Every structure is written in structure tokens, then in C-alpha cells.
């Protein structure tokens, strides 16, 4: 069935994985991980703040080190891999994309909420003009059906994207939902289709395989599954599973295990597991990056993180709305009483 078909693996340890470390990667971590990935044959390595270029902020957390410096550091050690950056229009700007190009980024991943592809047209166009590869990311893809997702993917294709991703930011898709969406894009687009899975429901690898079986040819993963929420599809597992199924990735998955153990496991801030709040995220369809912010707000306001996540899901918040976490926590702590307009300030 696979007939030795090529699947391109893109590593996002140094981007999506950044969420799990609250954006505290150090230069030496980046150098070790990027070098290891490069040696293992991973052809594309994404490096940015977890929320993309320009994400370092109060709202998403400040980076310990300037993402452009980290990009430069990686550029100095990789031999074959291309460096990628993520950009969310509305957070990062074209100036930051140009700066990333200067530091060696050659792949631009431009991400929007799944219904808002048109805000990426300028950035995709600019990436192409600079000679970069452009990949469109339709985030929170579980929130709309296959036909609507295809409509949005076509906007990105038309803007010049070389590939469009079904991005399961909330880790809320099951293999069935993944298949429907990937199939719609594979059938309806001329360009490649990718899958970016989160493991909140324990389905990241299964969804990635399902996507490949439907014709997706780009798959994201992170070493050790490092990533927002319960993490991403672990790259070493994805590589091994794809090889087992007869696909070709050009990646040495045994070497990936070593890199994961040597460079990633020691710096993990917490075990990358499906804890209760992550599971609730997958169930309620909440953006995975909210997890650690939710823990902090829950502690500060003395409320259950799962209740915060459920309320965020009810409000249909989308990626980027991290500010709503503290607001919801504050409201839950107050028992939902509206702000009277007076008083002496915060709790």
C-alpha cells in the first residue's frame, strides 16, 4: 500500500516543544538538538518561539533567549537540514520573517486559525518572493468540516503555499476526523498536504499514520513528544512506525532515540504525558498551548485547571487567546459575578 512512498518529516522540537519548556530553551540545548536532528537525517527543523516569530510576550511568555539568536546558532551547526520558522499573522509580522530569513530560515510556516486563511496571503506571498518554501498551517482544524477546511486551504494554495497542513492544535481529532480532512485536502489541492498532531487524546501517532495513509506527505513530530498540551507526535515513534509500514523518510529513527534521550529528556520541565487537564483539552477542543498558562492561573486563583479548560472550550476561544485564561480563572474564583466597576483591584 505504501509502495515505498516518501514522507517528509519536519521536526518541531525547537518550536512547538518550546511550549513545554515555557520558552526557556538555551542556546546550548538548541545546538545539541539541531545537530542531532541534522545527523539523524531530519531534513527540516523548525525553530521559533512556540507561538511563532514575535511570540515572546506577556501573553505567551517571554523567551529566555532571542529566537533569532537561536536560529543563527542552529544555522551554524546543521549541515543538510533546512531551517523553518513559524509565523502567526497578528502576532508576528513580515519584518520578523525577513529577519529570520537573514538568520538562515528557508522554510516559512504561516499559521492562521482554520477559518482565517486570508490573513496569511501577504506573508505567504512574501516568503515566496524571498525564495523561501511556504507552508500553510490551518490551526484548530477540528473546528470545521472537511469542505470548509478545503476552501480555506485553497486560499493558502492560491497565495503560493507549497503545502497546507491539517493542524490539530487542540489534539481533538480522532483518526476518522483526521482522515476526512486530509482526504478532502489531498483530493482538492494541487500542492502537498501535511499533518501536525497533538497527543491530548493519545492519538497523535495514530492520526499521523492515518493522515499519511490518506495521502499526506508531510508529518510533524517532536523528539520525545515534547510540545504543547500532552505534546506532539513523538518524532522517533512516527519515524519508526512509518518505516514499519513501508514508507521512506530518510531518517535514522534509532539515532533519533539517542538524540531524544541525550538532548531532550534531560531538559524536560515535566514528563510529557497525558495528564487530566491535557485529556480535557483534547475532549473540549482547546488550544494545547494553553496548558501551562492554565496551570499557573489555576494555582493563582485556586480553581481546578480542568474547569478553566472546559469553560474556555465553551467560549470557543481560538489559538492566541491566552489572555482569556486568567480572565476565566478570575471569574471562576469570583463565582462568575460580573465586575462591579469599583473595588480595590485584583484578588
Amino acid at each position, binding site marked *: 500500500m505504501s509502495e515505498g512512498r516518501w514522507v517528509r518529516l519536519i521536526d518541531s522540537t525547537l518550536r512547538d516543544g518550546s511550549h513545554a519548556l515555557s520558552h526557556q530553551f538555551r542556546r546550548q540545548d538548541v545546538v545539541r538538538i539541531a545537530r542531532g536532528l541534522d545527523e539523524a537525517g531530519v531534513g527540516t527543523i523548525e525553530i521559533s518561539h512556540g507561538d511563532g516569530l514575535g511570540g515572546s510576550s506577556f501573553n505567551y511568555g517571554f523567551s529566555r533567549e532571542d529566537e533569532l539568536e537561536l536560529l543563527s546558532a542552529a544555522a551554524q551547526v546543521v549541515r543538510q537540514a533546512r531551517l523553518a520558522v513559524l509565523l502567526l499573522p*497578528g*502576532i508576528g509580522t513580515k519584518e520578523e520573517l525577513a529577519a529570520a530569513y537573514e538568520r538562515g530560515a528557508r522554510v516559512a510556516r504561516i499559521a492562521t486559525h482554520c*477559518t482565517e486563511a486570508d490573513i496569511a496571503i501577504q506573508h505567504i506571498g512574501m516568503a515566496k518572493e524571498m525564495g523561501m518554501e511556504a507552508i500553510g498551517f490551518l490551526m484548530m482544524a477540528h473546528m470545521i468540516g472537511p469542505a470548509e477546511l478545503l476552501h480555506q486551504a485553497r486560499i493558502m494554495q492560491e497565495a503560493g503555499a507549497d503545502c497546507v497542513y491539517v493542524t490539530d492544535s487542540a489534539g481533538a481529532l480522532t483518526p476518522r476526523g483526521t482522515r476526512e480532512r486530509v482526504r478532502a485536502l489531498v483530493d482538492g489541492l494541487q500542492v502537498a498536504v501535511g499533518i501536525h498532531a497533538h497527543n491530548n487524546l493519545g492519538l497523535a501517532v495514530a492520526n499521523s499514520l492515518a493522515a499519511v495513509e490518506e495521502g499526506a506527505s508531510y508529518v510533524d513530530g517532536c523528539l520525545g513528544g515534547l510540545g504543547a498540551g500532552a505534546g506532539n507526535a513523538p518524532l522517533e515513534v512516527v519515524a519508526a512506525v512509518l518505516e514499519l509500514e513501508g514508507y521512506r523518510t530518510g531518517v535514522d529513527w534509532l539515532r533519533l532515540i539517542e538524540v531524544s534521550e541525550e538532548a531532550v529528556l534531560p531538559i524536560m520541565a515535566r514528563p510529557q504525558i497525558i495528564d487530566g487537564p491535557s485529556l480535557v483539552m483534547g475532549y473540549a477542543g482547546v488550544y494545547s498551548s494553553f496548558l501551562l498558562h492554565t496551570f499557573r492561573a489555576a494555582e493563582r486563583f485556586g480553581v481546578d485547571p480542568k474547569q478553566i479548560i472546559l469553560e474556555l472550550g465553551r467560549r470557543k*476561544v481560538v*489559538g492566541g487567546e491566552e489572555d*482569556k485564561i486568567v480572565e476565566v480563572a478570575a471569574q471562576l474564583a469570583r463565582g462568575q459575578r460580573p*465586575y462591579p466597576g469599583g473595588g480595590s*483591584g*485584583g*484578588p
Partner: protein
Amino acid sequence: MGKVRCAIVGTGNIGTDLMLKLGRSELLELALVVGIDPQSEGLALAKRLGYETTVDGIEGFRARYRELGLEIVFEATSARVHAAHAPVYRELGVTAIDLTPAALGPLVIPYVNIGDVLAEPNLNLGTCGAQATVPIVAAISSVTPVPYAEIVSTIASKSAGPGTRQNIDEFTRTTARALVQVGRAERGKAIIVLNPAEPPILMRNTVYAALDGAADREAIVGAIEETVARVQGYVPGYRLKVAPVFDEEKVTVFLEVEGAGDYLPPYAGNLDIMTAAAVRVGEEVARARLAQAQAKEARGA
């Protein structure tokens, strides 16, 4: 006091909402509505409401401005069109209040800096995010230095027009600059998020201001609440969502903006705050003009 006569150029959603708001002004008299599309809903409504109209665009404005005694023009077209019109207004001595992103003149925020820019020939309203958040940053700056201010505006997808969508970087750039230049933060950052939920969400803004640990929290809350009350004077649906939240390094302010629902739907607080601020700015310009005229008359007499 009499009224100062003004025109609206542009009969889309924004121009039409503005028309309904100007109808209630005690200082401004809408004397001409300028469009280019005879089929436009806005022009039809203007006629029904008994306003003078023209479909000849800027030439129609030029032909009639003297006869109608126009002193202020509200531009609700596009950045490109406003750039073409602005020299005409200037030549005719008509003060332009610009609701497009053209940003040819200084950014004006009612109450915050209007006194500094009242005499300028061209005033621009910046972005909805700036109108909603700069007053808060300025309020905090009035109590304590703000080394860094950051805002997140979340708006309903439906309320984001093609202009915003095609150039979303312009929003982040212009708004960040406003936090510094008018809000008096040392550095600024702006983020915009579009949310497609149905029914559409009300415009939301979160303001983060970095603070010195010793800052007077009570005074900050007082300044914020005073400012919210002042903005409510022209945007009644502008309110705090929860009490300002303080931690060691910053204060976080959660705002919601519900529109007046004149022509635009109430969820589009982001558009309403622009038209409401434009009217308020126009009224301040008018007040200054009327006072000037009165003084002149007194001297003459």
C-alpha cells in the same frame, strides 16, 4: 452655540454608522454625504434621512464645500483613497478626520492627546485596538512609568473587513506605535486575534503594563476606572470585564467593547469605537472653532 458643518466621504458600513451618530451630535451638522456608488445602501439611507448627497466623489465635495460651508470632513474610504483626497481637503482648508489606516496626520485619541493636535489639518484615528487600549495605557502612565505595554485585541471574524485582513501587520505596527507615542509606554507590542465563533463575540482587549514593584496599585486602579468612565461617555458599551489583576511585574486589564448598534451590529465594538471616537474628535474640533468664532465676534463688536 451653533453647529459646525461637516461631510462624510465614503458610504460603506463605517460611513453609514458615522452618519447615524452624527445625527445626534449637538456640535456637528452633517451637511453632505459623499459616495461614488449610486446603488450604495448608505447613500440611499442618507437620502431617506434627508441629507444632501453626491455620487461624484471628491469632485462632488469640491464643487459644493463652499456653498455648504463645510469645515470638517470624515473620511471613511480606504487608505489609498484618503491619500489622494487629503491634499484636496488641505487646499480647501477643511479639517480631515481620517478613519482609514492611511495615517497621514497625527494619531488622535479622545481625551488622551486631543488638546495637542486640535489645530492639525489631518487627524487619524489609528486602529480600533489603539482606540480601545491607549486610554488605559495612558491612565497607567499618568500614575507610574510604564517600561513596556502589550495589548491583545480579539475581534469577531465577521467584523474584520478586507482592509484589516489584507494587511494585518499594519494593525500590529500602528497599534504598537500608538502605545508608545500616545500611551507613553517606553516600548509597545500589539497582537490581534480573529475569532470566528457564532454568535459573534464582542470585541475584547487585554492590556498588560509592566510595572515597578513599588507602583501605587490603588492609584492605578483609580486612574483606570476614571478612564473607563470617560470612554463610556462616547462608547457606552466600553467596560472592564474583571478587576485589574496585579502580579509582581505587571498589571493586566481586561476590557470588553460592545457597540451601540447604530448601523453596525453590537458585536462590532471594534468598528463602533472608531466611529464614536471620530464623532468625539470632530466635536472637539468644532468646539474650538466655535469658541474661536465667538471670540472674533466679541472683538469685532
